[in-house]
């Protein structure tokens, strides 16, 4: 099976004062479909730049990036936008929900840009919310939901276009430990169902739920290790029952 993510010499420089800062330098990497990868490192290590490049939100200074076999740098902007919408789901630390829209409308939003009819959007959004366990709260606005529930809405939104890759930026950063654990359990369940996950975190406990960890320092990847993940569901039962 071919790689989902494939980078060669992926490099991102930022101009800074007199010179340039190498936020990411010469990254060669392959991530297969269905992997659960954690990217770790202190702030400024390049892990966020890595995530932005993988998410097609940023363009590399040098090097190649293929997502599902497509060379992203060669694509026109509209095609990149479509790629973001259909191949990638984003989950943010601060959820980034539209405060005035209910859960259903928030989840529907990515489908607006694919021009899907309203009926199908509603249907799929409802299914995605069921999948993250919020079937009963579809018409709640974010302010009526807890942090964990809001993050579930955000995950439903990320999943709704059926992407092969979920990008999560400190997904548990704003949550208490139990809720964080629940979110990680959800990620593991989604991963078992075939969704590849790339999760940026500075928390080794979070990285332990992945099956592979990439460590970054000063713009370079210094470690790439594979291991048996901790079962979040089991830990949840053990800790809170």
């Amino acid at each position, binding site marked *: 099976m071919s790689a989902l993510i494939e980078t060669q010499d992926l490099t991102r420089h930022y101009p800074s004062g007199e010179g340039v800062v190498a936020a990411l330098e010469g990254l060669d990497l392959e991530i297969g479909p269905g992997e659960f990868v954690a990217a770790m490192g202190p702030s400024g290590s390049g892990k966020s730049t890595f995530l*932005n490049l993988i*998410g097609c*939100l*940023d363009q590399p200074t040098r090097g190649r990036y293929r997502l599902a076999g497509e060379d992203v740098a060669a694509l026109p*902007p*509209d095609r990149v*936008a*479509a790629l*973001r*919408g*259909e191949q990638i789901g*984003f989950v*943010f630390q601060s959820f*980034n929900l*539209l405060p*005035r829209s209910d859960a259903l409308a928030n989840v529907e*939003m*990515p489908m*607006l*840009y*694919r021009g899907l009819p*309203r009926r199908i959007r509603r249907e799929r959004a409802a299914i995605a919310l069921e999948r993250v366990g919020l079937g009963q709260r579809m018409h709640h606005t974010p302010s009526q939901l807890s942090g964990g529930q809001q993050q579930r809405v955000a995950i439903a*939104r990320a999943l709704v*276009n059926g992407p092969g890759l979920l990008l999560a930026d400190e997904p548990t950063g704003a949550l208490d430990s139990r809720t964080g654990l629940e979110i990680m359990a959800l990620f593991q369940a989604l991963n078992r169902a075939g969704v590849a996950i790339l999760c940026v975190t500075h928390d080794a406990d979070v990285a332990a739920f992945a099956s592979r960890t990439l460590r970054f320092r000063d713009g370079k990847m210094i470690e790439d290790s594979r291991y048996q993940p901790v079962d979040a569901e089991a830990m949840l039962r053990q800790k809170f029952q």
Partner: protein
Amino acid sequence: MAEALLAALGALAANKLRAALTALGIFIGVAAVIVTVAVGAGARQQVLAQIQSLGANLLVVWGANVRLGGVSMGAGQRPNLSWDDAQEIPRQIAAVQVAAGTSRQQQQVVAGNQNWSTTVVATDPDYFVAHDWTTQEGRFFTNEEAMSGRKLVLLGATVVENLFGDEDPVGREIRIRSTPFEVIGVLGRKGQNPMGQDQDDVVIMPFWTARRSVMGAPRAFARAVGTISVKVHEGESMSDVEEELRQFFRQRHRVAANEPDTVSIRNLSEIAATRDASARTLSLLLAAVAAVSLLVGGIGVMNIMLVSVTERTREIGLRLAVGARRRDILRQFLLEAVLLALLGGAVGVIVGIGLAHTLAGVAGWPVLIQWDAVALAVTVSALTGLFFGYYPARRAARLDPITALRHE
């Protein structure tokens, strides 16, 4: 598209007061445009109606020194226009359709036990043509009847109301200076002239009849008339005919080259047109105010859209991250700006029309709602939104998704 509209409406509804205040500028502009144009058009229509009532293509010749509003001729003032001049003018000047010599006098008119003081106009049948008179009942008198001195009169609508009330006066008799006259017709209503005089307060009779029975004059002045009404053929130059008339009277009165004219010639429609021009100037001024208001309103829209873009930076970042193209973002904000401006425009239309009707009712101004101006005002308000919304929308569409997502 319908959903994008709903989304834009929702975004505006989230800040109702702000949206309302922003739309206010556009609203004032549009309302001002509509009221201005309505008042302007109303005034013009009134003036046109007055010009029509005076008689189109009409020149009136007065004896010199006799002022427009003055009725009496001063002592020793020799009347210098004659009935024969009026007969001669169309023969000498080809562009003239008809010319009618006219004498006017204030007289007491009696019918049964009613009496009324009114202006008696003694003239030719040509007078009806020159002043575009119509009859609402009966008929005009003919040339033969006029020349043979038959005692026939036509009454203006005001005279009929005062002497006969609702009764039909045709065939009845009135008396002036104890002479009986047969009423053969009622003149069509004309209303006020631009000087505010009631044009329907009039009795018209044949000139020679008046000379014999009502307006006695010394033998020397038997053929004298006060004014001559000259109607110019359609399409001929009024000013050319005015000059020809001037020359006609200079010759006829044997005026030396260095002497002043013995007659004065007035173009009544020109007097009315002057009023039209001043109404137009006022309209132009108000239109300028409206344009400035629309400009200020547009800047308000731009300002609030810039604020909105800043406030919703994270939302824009999010939308870009989930697959929105830059033109989707551009369209979203542009639509909001246009909708905001249109909202102001729509309220402006309603209030503008209401205000115009209020002015018509309360101040008694003649107003005429111009629907093409309403359509124009709405279009302009939409264009204002489009123009002033473009810069903020472009700014939103060009945001860098990474910085937008991190925006606090």
